């Protein structure tokens, strides 16, 4: 129903209102006094409400970082939990200012959906989770299996592609609501559950009655660069989102974290001085306060801190950094010079 509503709203909005002007989103966010952020309804490590109803995760931290960049404080965010099929409509119609919802960056989504993606905040790959008692060691053994998947995702398309190219047969069960599809898997309706492997690890760690009864198969059948997205046509807003992500990565590379950021203000390194706004200019170029990056790091920390506390060594999910390490440590996280 929500999605129906979103589509109707989109129809009406497109029918009636004028067009988005460059710079409009930032003014809009400032005049509302809050950032409206589309997040997942509950993916462990990415965005999930804790027992007090506070959203936590990498995607949530991106929203918090953006709020810190715009307002100086991280909590001027209103979270809109979105199911996979609603998310693009919500962004297109202007219901949310930023879509930070473990969403894969693809050509069609930029070309045909009118979106534009900021740099990936997590490099993922699609995997399969199965019950250990099936005794399966490889995804190639899944021929004839019934597989649970969320509809309207790249996951759904990759699944069909993988089975097609490996000449395996497949029976899919597609349920829109993430909790419902996980329930279907854990109740035994499906032999396997497929999703991004990080999400699988989160599901296994937080929702299985006994995580050791389930294994994630070794195959990664796709590239899933998960990135925040905004509407096309507002380059200033896109730049702000993009550089918010880069600031997180740059801070880790420069050794700045939430604990030492005040000390680092006195650093002699010109790169640190520029990032933290000691040397003026970057803030003005983006249309933000000169202390934008300082505020981000002070509030949410650098990328490494975000990773460790949400999905890494300090979290129940305990993923390795892998591709998500800095470029100079064997990963793909790389920030252009902030100057």
């Amino acid at each position: 129903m929500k999605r129906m509503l979103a589509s109707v709203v989109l129809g009406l909005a497109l029918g009636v209102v004028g067009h988005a002007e460059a710079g409009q989103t930032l003014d809009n966010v400032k005049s509302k006094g809050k950032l409206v952020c589309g997040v997942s309804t509950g993916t462990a490590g990415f965005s999930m409400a804790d027992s007090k109803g506070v959203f936590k995760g990498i995607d949530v931290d991106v929203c918090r970082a953006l709020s810190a960049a715009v307002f100086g404080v991280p909590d001027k965010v209103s979270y809109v939990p979105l199911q996979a099929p609603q998310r693009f409509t919500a962004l297109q119609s202007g219901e949310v200012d930023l879509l930070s919802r473990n969403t894969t960056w693809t050509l069609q989504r930029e070309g045909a959906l009118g979106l534009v993606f900021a740099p990936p905040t997590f490099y993922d790959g699609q995997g399969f989770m199965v019950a250990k008692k099936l005794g399966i060691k490889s995804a190639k053994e899944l021929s004839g299996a019934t597989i649970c998947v969320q509809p309207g995702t790249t996951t759904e398309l990759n699944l069909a592609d993988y089975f097609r190219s490996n000449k395996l047969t497949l029976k899919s069960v597609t349920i829109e609501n993430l909790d419902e599809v996980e329930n279907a898997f854990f109740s035994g309706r499906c032999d396997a559950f497929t999703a991004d492997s990080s999400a699988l690890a989160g599901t296994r760690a937080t929702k299985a009655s006994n995580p050791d009864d389930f294994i994630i198969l070794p195959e990664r059948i796709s590239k899933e660069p998960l990135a925040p997205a905004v509407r096309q046509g507002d380059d200033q807003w896109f730049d702000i989102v993009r550089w918010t992500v880069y600031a997180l990565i740059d801070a880790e590379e420069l050794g700045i974290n939430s604990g030492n950021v005040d000390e680092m203000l006195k650093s002699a390194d010109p790169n640190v001085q520029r990032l933290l706004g000691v040397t003026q200019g970057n803030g003005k170029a983006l249309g933000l306060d000169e202390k934008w990056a300082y505020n981000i790091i002070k509030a949410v920390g650098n990328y490494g801190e975000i990773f460790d506390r949400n999905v890494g060594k300090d979290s129940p999910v305990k993923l390795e950094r892998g591709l998500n390490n800095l470029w100079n440590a064997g990963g793909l996280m790389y920030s252009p010079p902030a100057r």
Partner: protein
Amino acid sequence: MPAKPASSLWTNPNFRNACWQVLTVAVLGAALGYFIHNSVINLQRQSIATGFSFFQREAGFEIGEALIDYAPADTYARAFMVGLLNTLQVAGIGIVLSTGLGIVLGIARLSSNWLLARLALAYVELIRNIPLLLQLLLLYAVLNTAAPGPRDAWHPLPGVFISNRGLFLPVPAGDPSHVFIAAAFAIGIVAAFGVRFWARKRQERTGQSFPVLAAGAALILGLPLLAWLAAGAPARMSVPELTGFNFAGGLDMPPEFAALLAGLVIYTTAYIGEIVRSGILAVSHGQAEAAAALGLKRGLILRLVVLPQAIRVIVPPMTSQYLNLTKNSTLAVAIGFPDFFSVVNTQINQTGQAIEGMACIIGAYLSVSLTISLLMNIYNARLALKER
């Protein structure tokens, strides 16, 4: 004699009515045109693709249940067709089942058996007052958790398996003679109607009755049986067999379909039962008493006197229940049955073209609903009292 007042076109009530109507249509049309024009411009400005060219593109996603051959390499148009057939299948079977059960329920509500009447009342009140979505989610969860996995499937009868993969039944294996058997079945139905027509004429002429029911049943069942025997009685069955993860062969009914169909039927039956009850109560009590005075038995009174008159009251509200059932089938999306709505939803999300997808949904459900309405209206017109 006073002069006849000059009648201008403007004082002509017919002309004025027509003017207002033309004006209303023009304003509505202009508003719609403005909306569409503005939408197209805004979609272009936001670089969102428009148009229906995606129909010919490869869909790329798997559909769990398909009545026709479908593979991810097929087009979106084909995927839509799969979804539409799934919707028609569940709505068609649902309408037939809920009509039958609804009639039974309505009669049970009026039964002189206290327990039966109270049970029927409890059923109606319980089912009508719980949201359908909740019932569907509950049924689905129960089917999934209560049934065992395929490797420990229940096996109540030879060849029948019940597991959380669905209900598997043995069916006759594909055989060329099936076409002839189906044809014999159709001929049997036509012949049965012929016999009924002939028997009625004869009864009007001579007063002699003829066992139409038995003869009709014999024709409808006997002819296909003869055809089957003539084809050499092919008895090969396709029996479900556990191969790897799941059963192969036979006929299967997956839990998503079962839960959706059961949910729709259980829910709609409660409403139809009440409609049938009100229809029966609308027939004057004197009719039944008169029939009893003529010596008709209770079953015959119901079948020959009460129901034919009740049906005139029943048909119009029944139409809206059929429409409700069809539209409620869109709740399939919540429990993962790939009906039309759910397939178009996937298309909307994969192509990002929400307006076109919504237009398809509106068009499809409108066509199905109007067709049901049309058929029911024709039936209703045939039943109506002929006033001459």
